């Protein structure tokens, strides 16, 4: 095995190519997307000063103040958590569309566990609620993994269907007496007791700062995912199955077990994202509390090139766009839908690195053309 190959297998190939791939392409994609976003605004009749104002607001709302940073990280945490799970799945060759459903199940389980532990001290209640979220997500994703391993049902289809089931299950469970808030007829869960809340970190400065301890959970999981993927036997098996399932089987890797485990780990991380939301941000579960995190996380995982560190940065970028987009609405009256367009454009450009290289030739190593090679 050549050293390069060896490094590639260990995922440590941080060469010139990867810098181009992980830094330059996303950076240029962001610039191109913002520029096209400005064109979209012009096309919809927004004047130039408002466009300038809105981009200033985008920066101001994402990194321009303590509150902006707090909002960026608050929005990033669930995206990174769920994105890590999806990245693990992608590495194992599993295209898991079910993070949304796993977020829902994880959040719901965290509510149930949190409410049940109302009388416990925080050292017990909080970890129990978080672990309940991870387990529920793992179990729910494990269903799709098991279906794939046992029957060959494709995980794209089964996870989409499990998403649909989870929406209705949420509507139903939120109205059962165990979960529903007392005195309400609409689907809304009981409030998370204080002991099980992820504590807010900066309320001593300003009670409106929402940054909570979930940010540590996010960072810890980045490390765990990195270790799992590149330093553990299980991670090696995931990656080997993802690269070439047949070769992996002949190498003695249990394909079915690997699929179920990979899905379960992915689901556990998505479940943590759900727990993070209900325990740290919302304080309860309501219909639609998942708010599309599981779908945005797919983009985050792809943007982060399915690498835990890449996912972290991509998640923070998406968090910044969300927080900044809100400020765009406040300061410039530009619709929040525009942020969705910019996010989508970034993904389009990331997915087409050749296009980015053609528009922004600066900083890329010159590749020899085929004629020269011959």
């Amino acid at each position: 095995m050549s050293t390069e190959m060896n490094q590639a297998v260990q995922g440590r190939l941080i060469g010139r190519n990867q810098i181009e791939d992980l830094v330059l392409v996303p950076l240029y994609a962001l610039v191109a997307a913002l520029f096209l976003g400005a064109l979209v605004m012009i096309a919809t009749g927004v004047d130039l000063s408002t466009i300038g104002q809105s981009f200033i607001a985008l920066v101001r709302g994402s990194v321009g103040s303590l509150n902006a940073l707090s909002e960026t990280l608050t929005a990033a945490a669930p995206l990174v958590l769920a994105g890590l799970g999806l990245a693990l799945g992608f590495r194992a060759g599993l295209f898991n569309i079910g993070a949304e459903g796993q977020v829902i199940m994880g959040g719901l389980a965290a509510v149930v566990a949190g409410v049940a532990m109302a009388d416990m001290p925080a050292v017990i209640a909080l970890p129990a609620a978080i672990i309940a979220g991870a387990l529920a997500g793992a179990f729910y994703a494990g269903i799709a993994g098991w279906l794939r391993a046992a029957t060959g049902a494709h995980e794209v289809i089964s996870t989409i269907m499990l998403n649909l089931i989870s929406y209705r299950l949420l509507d139903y469970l939120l109205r059962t007496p165990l979960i529903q808030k007392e005195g309400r007829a609409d689907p809304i869960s009981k409030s998370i007791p204080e002991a099980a809340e992820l504590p807010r970190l900066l309320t001593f400065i300003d009670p409106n700062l929402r940054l909570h301890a979930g940010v540590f959970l996010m960072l810890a999981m980045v490390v765990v995912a990195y270790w799992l993927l590149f330093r553990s036997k299980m991670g090696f098996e995931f990656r080997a199955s993802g690269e070439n399932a047949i070769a992996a089987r002949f190498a003695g890797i249990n394909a079915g077990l690997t699929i179920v485990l990979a899905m379960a780990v992915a689901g556990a991380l998505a479940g943590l994202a759900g727990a993070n939301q209900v325990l740290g941000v919302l304080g309860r579960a309501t219909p639609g509390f998942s708010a599309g995190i599981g779908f945005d996380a797919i983009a985050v995982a792809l943007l982060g090139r399915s690498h835990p560190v890449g996912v972290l940065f991509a998640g923070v970028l998406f968090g910044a766009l969300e927080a900044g987009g809100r400020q765009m609405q406040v300061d410039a009256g530009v619709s929040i839908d525009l942020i969705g367009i910019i996010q989508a454009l970034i993904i389009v450009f990331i997915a087409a690195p050749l296009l980015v290289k053609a528009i922004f030739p600066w900083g890329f190593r010159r590749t020899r053309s085929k004629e020269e090679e011959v």
Partner: protein
Amino acid sequence: MKTLRSKLMLSIIAAAVALAASSAAMAFTACQVTDTGGIDDNSFNQTAWKGVLDAMEDFGVEGRFLESQAETDYEANINSLIDGDCDIIVTVGFLLGDATQKAATANPDQPFSIVDFAYDPQIDNVLGQVYATDQAAFLAGYLAAGMSKTKILGTFGGINIPPVTIFMDGFVKGADYWNAQKGDAVEVLGWSVADREGLFTNNFDNLDDGRAFAQNLYDEGADIVLPVAGPVGLGSATLADELGIDRLKIIGVDADLYFTDSERQHVYLTSITKRMDATVRAVIERTMQGSFEGGLLVGTLENGGVDLAPFHDMDALVPDELKAELAALRAGIIDGSISVSD
């Protein structure tokens, strides 16, 4: 070519930045956070936003809004307005009740007003805007019972929360009142006043649901349907448009949908208007005059906060006798001789 392009881009950015920096104004600013469904929903959020627009026109205030795309946005949206120099923050909808309470408690000097929520005990810096919608819905129920040929009416809601079910309560009781007066047996599908259960789409934004729910009610024989779900009802209107108004008529809610949904205006028998625009405007006016106070503002038939819209194109279809009965009923509700709550 490349340098030209980059210079052009730079100059555009520079120009935009310069322009942006020079356009800051100091005025009374009214800010609004919408519920999911969007500011342009032809119904709930749009009516409340119209109140700000009216105030902008009448008093020269500045208005800003933030759309909530999901329930997770409520708190973040309110928080980002707290930094934004708003003189009053109006939150639109019952579902924002908890988030508004939290923000109001954390920022006791910031005036808030919330549509469709009454706090008990009251919060000093929150003015709740609530509506006796059942009064107008009672009239609509009586009217629909009198107009139905199949003797079956239908209704469905967005989410099973009080500001939605109060429409359905009034509607059912109005139809019951017709039955009691006329010895008739008009049935209302979709809501049981006693069980507090009925048909709900569980969202306020899916137009397809509006169509499907109306189709189900139509299949069960209903010829007049009251959707209480904001823009979801537009899907029901599309179905009525396709079936024709002989077979299915729609009763609008919140705004007079004859005007806001002008493409399908002919399908609306009437609308139960909830004049959030009037109350929002009044709250802004009060705050401008410095007379803001926490508490409650209640819209009723008497003060015009709720009402039954004109029949417009269907005016000729409504018998004069029924119109006269409605007028008497309305007077009875206002003077208290007819109770809509039992």
